[in-house]
């Protein structure tokens, strides 16, 4: 029997230990840093300052500011948020306000209660970060912040203050216990198919396609490797020359900028979906223009989530503020449109009269020498091909008459420039035309099994109306820079991914690494971030629950939670329950049971040797059998350490012991 060591009682602690406070402040700073993209610029410095002042005050035992000073500070901070955002609403302003008020709270944080408030605010800031950004690379950072927060929370439970390593270790263990239940809840807690309300989105600065285009104002187009969309095809991939992903269609031109047309008139735009159909699931990164960027030309019949416009765009019914998955089928050879209404013709022929006079001259000249619309289109394309135009991502800026400037002065530009000029020339020549923006290309990721389209693949082309054929795609950039289209082909052929292209063929493993990373991102985006009610029902189906409804989810949820509760009760009992007796103790207990059953129990405080001595007086035979065992027990228990084999041998002998009768 081991004698427990005595301990002394504690005084009552009113404030948390230094370790808990330190963890709390670190968690707050890390979490605020994770929100950097939408916090006001002054918010992080304020938090750092407040933490420093808090430390100084507590280390020196100085008084913290009084009530009036704190109220004043709160008012100033609110005013600061208003000055930065003009509102207190929305994710950015709300997060900034919360972070600023938490900084103010640091000035008065003494009692345990104040620290609960600070940890709660930290967790809320973490929620804001999760709501805003869900990229995979952020996940470890979020997990780290969560770990720090719960470790701080653990320091608030009372008892003697514990060190930060203990708090971190214990909370890590606890997080591991929590994870299975979190996964069960994640999979089966019924989601809502839609939102009950939505915050005004203040996040319009998303890279990629915009809903307007002014190529003349861009001096340098930066290629971004950010993903734009991923598509998993059910069967074969579309050929490279058909990988046009249709985004916003631009109609209105003021001589410099192309814009979408508000309220395109509803005209019967019979699309004949014919030719090869490609079925695929599309995961689209967020955009601000609500267009579901799909392979040309998506059939709206299978897309109830979007509205099919007369210029063949799929406009999502919900804002695309986060990555979303869509099931689509597209027909690249579809025939687009039968009749063009007068109103639509007017819109797509409109051209500012007082702009780009030289372009008008050129268009009229080419038009005069062309027999019909088809010939006119060909002659303009030929003009662009043979006119000495250069494809560059760093063009000179264009003036007010951007088309004239491009055609007759700079003669350099990228897809936007040429699409703009081409459509302008078409309209002047009397052919209805419009600019289509979107993406061209896509790189096959063999690890993830999908086609990846990056923001760098953004493209602009044109559509012209030809009587009898409907809307026909014309890509003037292909005339100027055929290699722009071939690039995708090259990449596809060499099996390299995006940014690895310029690293050369020797860096094959880097390519594999990049592809794996992107595949992992795709999995994260599809399976975790994109997990929704429909997927939940599919999961319930897959588990064989039969009906696809709320009840099956509830049953799965209940079963999962019950299993977890059993598991947690069992594992905590193992940890916190009474110590399990060791092998030696168990062996002797077996002997104890036998002698008790034989009617000669050992008294609880009696040592085994003493017991044998007592037994020898009444049961000499039994005592003789037991005495060697008792001596060995004493030696094993109190003597020097022995090999495990000897312990096992003793256990076997104890098992063989029988109380002799008579």
């Amino acid at each position, binding site marked *: 029997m081991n004698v*427990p060591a005595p301990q002394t009682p504690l005084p009552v602690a009113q404030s948390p230990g230094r370790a808990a406070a330190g963890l709390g402040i670190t968690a707050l700073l890390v979490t605020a840093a994770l929100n950097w993209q939408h916090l006001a610029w002054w918010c992080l410095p304020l938090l750092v300052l407040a933490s420093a002042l808090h430390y100084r005050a507590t280390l020196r035992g100085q008084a913290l500011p009084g009530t009036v000073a704190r109220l004043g500070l709160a008012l100033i901070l609110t005013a600061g948020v208003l000055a930065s955002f003009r509102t207190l609403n929305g994710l950015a302003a709300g997060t900034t306000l919360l972070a600023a008020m938490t900084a103010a709270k640091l000035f008065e944080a003494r009692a345990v209660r104040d620290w609960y408030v600070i940890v709660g605010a930290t*967790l809320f800031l973490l929620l804001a970060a999760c709501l805003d950004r869900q990229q995979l690379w952020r996940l470890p950072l979020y997990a780290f912040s969560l770990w720090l927060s719960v470790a701080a929370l653990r320091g608030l439970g009372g008892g003697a203050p514990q060190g930060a390593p203990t708090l971190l270790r214990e909370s890590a263990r606890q997080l591991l216990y929590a994870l299975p239940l979190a996964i069960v809840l994640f999979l089966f807690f019924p989601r809502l198919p839609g939102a009950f309300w939505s915050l005004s989105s203040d996040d319009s600065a998303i890279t990629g396609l915009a809903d307007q285009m002014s190529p003349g104002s861009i001096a340098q187009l930066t290629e971004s490797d950010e993903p734009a969309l991923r598509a998993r095809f059910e069967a074969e991939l579309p050929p490279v020359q058909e990988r046009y992903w249709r985004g916003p269609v631009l109609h209105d031109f003021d001589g410099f900028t192309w814009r979408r047309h508000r309220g395109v008139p509803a005209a019967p735009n019979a699309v004949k979906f014919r030719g090869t159909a490609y079925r695929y699931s599309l995961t689209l990164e967020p955009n601000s223009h609500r267009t579901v960027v799909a392979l040309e030309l998506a059939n709206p019949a299978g897309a109830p989530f979007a509205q099919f416009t007369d210029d063949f765009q799929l406009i999502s019914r919900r804002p695309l503020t986060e990555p979303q998955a869509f099931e689509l089928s597209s027909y690249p050879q579809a025939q687009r449109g039968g009749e063009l209404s007068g109103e639509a013709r007017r819109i797509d022929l409109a051209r500012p009269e007082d702009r780009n006079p030289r372009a008008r001259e050129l268009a009229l000249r080419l038009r005069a020498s062309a027999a019909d619309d088809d010939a006119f289109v060909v002659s303009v394309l030929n003009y662009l091909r043979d006119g000495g135009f250069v494809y560059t991502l760093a063009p000179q800026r264009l003036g007010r008459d951007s088309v004239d400037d491009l055609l007759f002065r700079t003669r350099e530009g990228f897809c936007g420039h040429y699409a703009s000029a081409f459509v302008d020339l078409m309209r002047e020549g009397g052919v209805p035309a419009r600019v289509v923006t979107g993406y061209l290309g896509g790189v096959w990721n063999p690890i993830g099994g999908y086609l990846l389209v990056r923001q760098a693949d953004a493209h602009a082309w044109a559509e012209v109306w030809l009587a009898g054929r409907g809307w026909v795609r014309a890509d003037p950039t292909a005339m100027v820079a055929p290699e722009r289209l071939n690039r995708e082909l090259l990449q596809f052929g060499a099996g390299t991914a995006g940014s690895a292209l310029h690293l050369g063929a020797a860096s094959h493993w880097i390519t594999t690494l990049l592809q794996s990373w992107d595949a992992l991102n795709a999995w994260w985006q599809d399976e975790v971030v994109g997990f929704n009610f429909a997927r939940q029902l599919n999961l319930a189906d897959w588990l064989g629950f039969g009906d696809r409804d709320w009840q099956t989810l509830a049953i799965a949820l209940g079963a999962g939670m019950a299993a977890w509760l059993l598991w*947690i009760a069992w594992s905590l009992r193992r940890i916190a329950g009474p110590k399990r007796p060791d092998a030696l103790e168990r062996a002797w207990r077996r002997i104890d049971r036998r002698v008790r059953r034989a009617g000669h129990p050992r008294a609880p405080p009696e040592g085994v040797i003493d017991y044998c001595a007592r037994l020898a007086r009444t049961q000499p035979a039994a005592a003789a059998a037991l005495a060697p065992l008792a001596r060995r027990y004493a030696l094993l228990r109190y003597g020097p350490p022995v090999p495990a084999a000897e312990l096992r041998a003793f256990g076997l002998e104890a098992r063989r012991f029988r109380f002799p009768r008579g």
Partner: protein
Amino acid sequence: MYAALRDRFTARVAAWARRRQGLDEPPLILQSRRLYILPTAPGLSFGLLLFVMLIAGLNYTNSLALLLTFVLAAFVLVGMHECQRTLNGLELVLAQAADCYAGTEGLVELRFVNRSAQGRRALAVRSPGTRASHFDLDAGAQITVQLPFQAMRRGRQRIERLELASTAPFGLFRCWTWLHLPLEAIVYPQPLGTRPLPRGGESRSSLESRASSPAEEEWTSLRHYQPGDSPRSIAWKAWARGAPLMVAQYQGTGGSEHLLSFAGLEGLGLDARLSQLCAWVQDCARHDAACALQLPGVELPLGRGPAHRTSLLRALALYGSGAA
């Protein structure tokens, strides 16, 4: 109104728990059957926070926010189990209450043993209406906790109910149990009274001079302070030097003998008489004088020393309760 309702509710719950659990007898191992657990005020606020997070995650159909919420919720649930584990299996091996004077705080001593391989933290034990004693217990450790109880009235005082609680590990949940131990303290009368100590038969001492100036010149021994000792007899100088509170004991009064008689205190009520007698017993003990006690129906012969003093005080405490 609200307080009255709450008190009635508390009394109901206490009675229910008493019926349910029965009387406890140490040694006692706390089993989960008798452990109760509820969220604390921060726990309720945290629950509200989780609810808001859940609504936000559901509303924006944001999987990551939901994952965060679920991890936190599961984490708190693990904490709830851990909170219950803090008490579950804890062993109470000893419980006793010391005698004390009415109107003071008595002390209950409890010894807990933690036989598990895991420490137990943020434990607190208290008797209703008094402050709690806080303690932690490492793996395999034991502790003796002293906790005060309010000694109200002279006589036997049962300490019906103790509350043992823990808020580990977060303070979001509080797990507690009620201990109904056979704890009985004997509460002496309050030592009060202004009448001079009656001179015993053949006293030879200069008791008055002692009583008027118990200077620190002639004490022969020091003993530890006990509740009820006169502040005048405390060795303040020794205390100022950092020693614990000690009481000076004087020589030379050993010869005096006093008859402390209930009947001799005319003009006082019962409790006032007992209080006066109690004060006299203290005086005698302080001066190591021999004394005898005469109560109606009870007579205690002359004697001295701590055991004698205790028997006198107990006689005073229990006088009239029928169980002297």
